[in-house]
Every structure is written in structure tokens, then in C-alpha cells.
């Protein structure tokens, strides 16, 4: 079966602005991954097509792109998930700088991730065994710990679109991951880091992040827990 990919191209060494190019590729069945089709283009038709990818099954977070207007992972989106009877529109993640074709500049995204102190702080001397934690407390962290830092959420957020200083849902989720870890002692510092004019209060529960997350993380719920914790602390 023939499928048309309409891919946004941009080569900074050659183009003054992005443009679209169509490729007709051959798909075995509707279970083929969009990533496989991108590979087909790169390996068969045009080696200059540039995108990131690694694990190809949705655990490394390299290949967040925009498919028919939705932020998704190329490797976790199958043909049957999109309308493939019409050209499938493939673009880089929106609202962050494009470097080349589907590759975007993630440095700001990573900076915001680092701003929430994404590591456990516990300065009391560790016991000889593990620090005990109930399974319920552990499982409270699991959903947030699933995050693969693909940036699908943050780049889908209207608050991020209008203010690129906004810390964004991914960093807030990471803050949750540690603030709610019973073993952690730096919750206050992390809460301070998100309680800024460009921080958590720019989240207006729009839910775009939840819709975009390829790992099905309910980001808005996690952010709400942080807001609750902050109001408890401040008032």
C-alpha cells in the first residue's frame, strides 16, 4: 500500500525557511511505524532527511515529532493511528527552534529540567539496608518516573507557546517525582524553583500535555498535586 508523507524540511545551510516535501513510500500494512516510513525515506530516497531516533519502541524519547498536528513519538505511532489515506503531515515539535528538518534544539528544555533539581537529596546518613518505603508510596512515583523527556508535552502547551520562559509540564512532572518521594529532603528547594512568575502558576490546566504524552502520564494531575502542596506550604 502506498502512503504519502508530507514532511517539513529545513536545512539551515541551504534554505532560508522551512518548506514541505512529499514522499510516496510503500507500507506493508497499517501496523507499520511512522519511524519505519521515515527510515524508508532516508534509506531509499533521500539520505539528507534528518531526525533523531534510537530505541524505536517508545522508551528512549528521541523521536518526538508532530504528526498530523499532534505531538507524538514516530516509533509509537502506527499508520492505523492516523489517517493515511491522505498525506501524513510530519513536522518538528512546535515552538522550539528548528535545527534541521525534524531536529529541534532541546537545550532550553533540558535547562528547565535541571532547574527543579532532578535528583534525590537526602543528607541524613544512609542506613546499611535500603531506605524503607511503602509500596503505595513507591507507586505514587511510578507514573511520574515513566517520563522519557521527549518534550511532546512541553511543546504542546499553550503557556509554553506564549511564554518560552515558562518552565513547562515536563520539568514540573520531574519536580513532582522528587517532592513526593518520601525519601527526599529537598522538597522546599524544588517548590521554590517552581513557585516563580514563570513557574507552575502559568499552568492553566489546559490538558494539552496529557493528550500529547506518549507514555500516557496524567501530567495535569501531577501538576495539581504540586499546586496543592504549594498552597498548603504558603498559606
Amino acid at each position, binding site marked *: 500500500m502506498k502512503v504519502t508523507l508530507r514532511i517539513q524540511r529545513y536545512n539551515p545551510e541551504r534554505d532560508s525557511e522551512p518548506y514541505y516535501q512529499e514522499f510516496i513510500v510503500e507500507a506493508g500494512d497499517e501496523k507499520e511505524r511512522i519511524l519505519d516510513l521515515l527510515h524508508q525515506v532516508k534509506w531509499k530516497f533521500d539520505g539528507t532527511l534528518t531526525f533523531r531516533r534510537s530505541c524505536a519502541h517508545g522508551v528512549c524519547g528521541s523521536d518526538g515529532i508532530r504528526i498530523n498536528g499532534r505531538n507524538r513519538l514516530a516509533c509509537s505511532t502506527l499508520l492505523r493511528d492516523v489517517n493515511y489515506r491522505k498525506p501524513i503531515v510530519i513536522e518538528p515539535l512546535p515552538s522550539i527552534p528548528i535545527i534541521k528538518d525534524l531536529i529541534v534544539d532541546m537545550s532550553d528544555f533540558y535547562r528547565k529540567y535541571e532547574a527543579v533539581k532532578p535528583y534525590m537529596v537526602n543528607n541524613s546518613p544512609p542506613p546499611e539496608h535500603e531506605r524503607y518505603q511503602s509500596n503505595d508510596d513507591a507507586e505514587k512515583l511510578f507514573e511520574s518516573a515513566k517520563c522519557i523527556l521527549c518534550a511532546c508535552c512541553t511543546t504542546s502547551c499553550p503557556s509554553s507557546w506564549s511564554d518560552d520562559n515558562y518552565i513547562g509540564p515536563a520539568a514540573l512532572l520531574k519536580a513532582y517525582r522528587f517532592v513526593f518521594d518520601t525519601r527526599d529532603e529537598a522538597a522546599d528547594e524544588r517548590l521554590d524553583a517552581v513557585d516563580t512568575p514563570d513557574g507552575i502558576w502559568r499552568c492553566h490546566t489546559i490538558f494539552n500535555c496529557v493528550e500529547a504524552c506518549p507514555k500516557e502520564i496524567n501530567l495535569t494531575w501531577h501538576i495539581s498535586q504540586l*499546586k496543592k502542596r504549594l*498552597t498548603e506550604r504558603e498559606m
Partner: protein
Amino acid sequence: MYKHTGSRGSGAPGWVLQRITGLLLVIVVIGHYFVMHADPASGHTYAAVLERMHHPLWKMFDLTFITVGLWHGLNGTWGIFRDYKMKPAVSLTIYGVIILSGIAFWVLGVNTILSF
């Protein structure tokens, strides 16, 4: 990280207050509706308004209404502006206009209510 116009403290009180005032406004608006609009005959005579405005409880009601309404509306407006990245001069101007108009409307409103 970045310079901002507006409060430097925690955003939590503002966030909570916006929700509390929102809730209050719903109640006050319902009251306002029943007094002013539910029965068109009752509220609209000069005498009826004059009588209500002299009553201390109604003064309290109106003072709450204007305070809560102004704060909620202007804080919300500022929140909308705040979602956009602006040059400091622009944001300072908008912030200033919002604060000043808030004070002006509040003084005008309070003055009107208390003059009865």
C-alpha cells in the same frame, strides 16, 4: 532567572485567592440577580434602591461585590497578559494601568456606596 513585573513572592496566595473570589462571585452574582433582575418590578424604583443603599448589610454586600469583582477581574486580566512574554516597559505599563484602574474604580465604587 528572568526579570518580571509584579509580585516577587509566592504565586500560591494569588492562585488560591483567584479561586476563592471566583467562588464568592458566583454566590454574589446569584444574589445580585435575584435582587435586580428576577422580579423587574421590585428593584428598579428610586425609592427601593435608596432604601437598600442605606441598609448597612447591603452596604457590606456591595463593598464585597466591588472588591471581590475588581480584584478577580483585574488579577485575571493581568494573568492573561502575564502569559505572554513582553518587553519590561510594556509589561510595566500594563501592570501600572491595571493597578491604577483598580484603585480608581475601587475608590469610585466605595465612595458611591458610602455616600448614601
